[in-house]
């Protein structure tokens, strides 16, 4: 057992910290750190800057821009990135479709898409969920029917995050209506400017617009846009969903949130109950971070550590708890409308309740916390 990082990893960590502040413009990082709105343009600028330095897709295969880092180094990369206020590279590009294409696509398709994906020249959207197809995808209804060289797509996707900015969308579509459940599904890449693609906003309870419905009406997609083989979609979907290891626990994000909350608490830190609440959260967060470190330190062989399933569950619970703390610290100021041009209530207080409400999603998406408990009970405990 040894606590400190190896000299190499320590140097790596410092290099990351230095790189992020050097490479990504300060106004973007300030916006992130202060919880202001992060625009699509900022995300684009940041990712291009990262990519130019080889910091956007380090976990990809080396030939496509990956760096061959250890899991611990990837963890340090991610944590330092969040700590510096750098917007994470767009996950639809770097964690989802990128690795899938690198694994399953033809060489031609890789060359066409991977560099543009790493550099966010293409903004990808995810087209998996449908109104009646959740975690199991068994109810998937969007169809692609072969017509000559093309596919003709009809159906509806939902919960498409940031779909309003999407250039392309990777979709799961039913290509064999006879096959049962998850069989008969293929993955198709669709240019979102194609006629018949319509993005409709979904307003959330925090008043924001971050998810969308995407409708397909007789959308004609070239046959070459099929990824891998026909009816291989479920395999790719499983690969994609199991591939989001790095950053699965929002440790650095929650640390930043908690440190900000404490900084903003002001007088309320005189209240022993508030102090105790913060100390308790800090301790839980420390235990989570140490668990994340334990997982990455011992996942070198690519096998997921059993405790990794704990990370999302507790990470999102703590994220929610810290966002709830912020609302309590804001007090009545949380009610001051964000739309007022002048107000005494600070911006963070006026944003606190929308952030709290928005983070209710954290325990729902990306495999709900009930799914996580199910995985732990079944896979780890054998129940």
């Amino acid at each position, binding site marked *: 057992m040894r606590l400190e990082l190896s000299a190499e990893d320590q140097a790596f960590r410092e290099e990351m910290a230095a790189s992020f502040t050097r490479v990504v413009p300060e106004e973007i990082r300030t916006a992130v750190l202060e919880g202001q709105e992060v625009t699509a343009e900022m995300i684009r600028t940041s990712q291009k800057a990262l990519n130019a330095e080889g910091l956007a897709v380090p976990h990809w295969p080396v030939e496509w821009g990956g760096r061959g880092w250890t899991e611990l180094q990837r963890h340090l990369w991610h944590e330092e990135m969040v700590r510096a206020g750098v917007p994470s590279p767009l996950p639809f590009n770097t964690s989802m479709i990128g690795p899938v294409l690198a694994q399953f696509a033809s060489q031609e398709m890789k060359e066409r898409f991977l560099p543009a994906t790493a550099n966010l020249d293409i903004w990808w959207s995810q087209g998996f969920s449908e109104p009646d197809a959740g*975690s199991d995808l068994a109810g998937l209804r969007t169809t692609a029917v072969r017509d000559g060289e093309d596919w003709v797509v009809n159906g509806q996707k939902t*919960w498409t995050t940031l779909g309003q900015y999407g250039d392309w969308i990777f979709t799961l579509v039913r290509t064999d209506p006879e096959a049962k459940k998850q069989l008969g599904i293929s993955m198709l890449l669709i240019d979102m400017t194609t006629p018949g693609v319509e993005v409709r906003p979904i*307003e959330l309870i925090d008043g924001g617009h971050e998810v969308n419905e995407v409708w397909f009406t007789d959308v004609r997609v070239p046959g070459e846009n099929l990824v891998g083989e026909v009816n291989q979609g479920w395999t790719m979907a499983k690969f994609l969903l199991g591939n989001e290891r790095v950053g699965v626990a929002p440790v650095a994000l929650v640390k930043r949130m908690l440190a900000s909350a404490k900084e903003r608490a002001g007088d309320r830190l005189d209240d022993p109950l508030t102090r105790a609440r913060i100390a308790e959260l800090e301790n839980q967060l420390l235990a989570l971070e140490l668990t994340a470190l334990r997982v990455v330190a011992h996942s070198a062989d690519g096998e997921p550590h059993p405790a990794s399933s704990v990370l999302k569950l507790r990470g999102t619970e703590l994220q929610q708890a810290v966002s709830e703390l912020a609302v309590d610290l*804001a007090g009545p100021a949380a009610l001051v*409308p964000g739309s007022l041009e*002048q107000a005494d209530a600070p911006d963070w207080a006026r944003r606190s309740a929308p952030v709290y409400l928005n983070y209710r999603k954290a325990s729902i998406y990306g495999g709900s916390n009930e799914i996580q408990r199910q995985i732990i009970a079944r896979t780890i405990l054998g129940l």
Partner: protein
Amino acid sequence: MDFTHDEEQVALRDAVRGLLGRKYADFEERRRTARGELGFDETVWKQLAEMGVLGLPFDEEHGGMGAGPVEVGLVASEVGRVLAPEPFLAAVVLGGGAVAAAGTDEQKAELLGALAAGERRLALAHTDGATPVTAAEADGGWMLTGAKEPVLGGDAETLVVSAALPGGGTGLFVVDGEACERATGPAFDGSRVSRVVLSGTAATPLGEPGADASAALARVLDLGRLAACHEALGGMEVALQATTAYLKSRKQFGVPLNTFQALNFRAADMYVSLELTRSIVAWATMMVAESDAGLAHEAVLRAALQVSRAGRHVGQEAIQLHGGIAMTAEYLVGNITSHLTALDHLLGDGQQHLAELAGAVDGYPGLDPLAPTMRSASTQ
């Protein structure tokens, strides 16, 4: 000891439920209305006036109905069930309540009469902004300076503003809304909330000029907290109903969600929270109706503490058990959670109430809701 409502109370509840439930049965209608320029429906407001709801707790001689906290609670609960955007809490309970508690007979007749008739909305501007509002006497009149935010329903025609008096204590003043510098917008839950800036603004003392109105103000705030408890309770009821209905109808992995025991048990825990809250809110309502101000205040804090805890529990679980659909603005349940959060922070949250209660915890052996003092005589 009787926790039931009498016939008249049931009739009142049914009437309000009939009106608001019909109007806002389709949640889309509520969203549309709340987003309109006024933020609520003027016709509904008039109908509430006709039913006597806008003068409910005020003396009949001032145009009111002479009803009490029980009736106010019934109405607030109905408002909470459908998230009716009409400013019952802001205008009637807080704004009107302040006038009823501190005004002269003349002021009551004028202001409460107009309120009860649906002709004039009132609002209570109490929470100070960065510059607390102070009152000064000048030229035989009074003027106020400072900022109030947030002011619930602060776009009302007439404001009742609390202000530090020159000689100490807190005074209440009537201010013409148009005379202030005001900005109004939707709070995160859609409620209309204002920032009100006073810069030597002319004001009329409510009640005897220069007199300390702290006790009256404290009473009004307690009435506001209590009404907020009822509004929250109505919301929680509907959130649980919607959740159980969803668990029964929604299928996942090919079976209805209520096949999953873990989800059902969590719904059962929501029910437990709800029932405990129902009991303590009913009790606090009776305490406010029947006891002195000190006991009433403590009872309200106790109810509000429980509402804070239960509101978070029920609101969060309602979203989680629904899943993504409850995150959307067009679905009622997530909006209830949002509104529960707003109500919890309007007039002090659970942790603040707990701190106040904890401060006194060594002063008595235990609680006895059947004793006149709420305290048990001794350990035995």
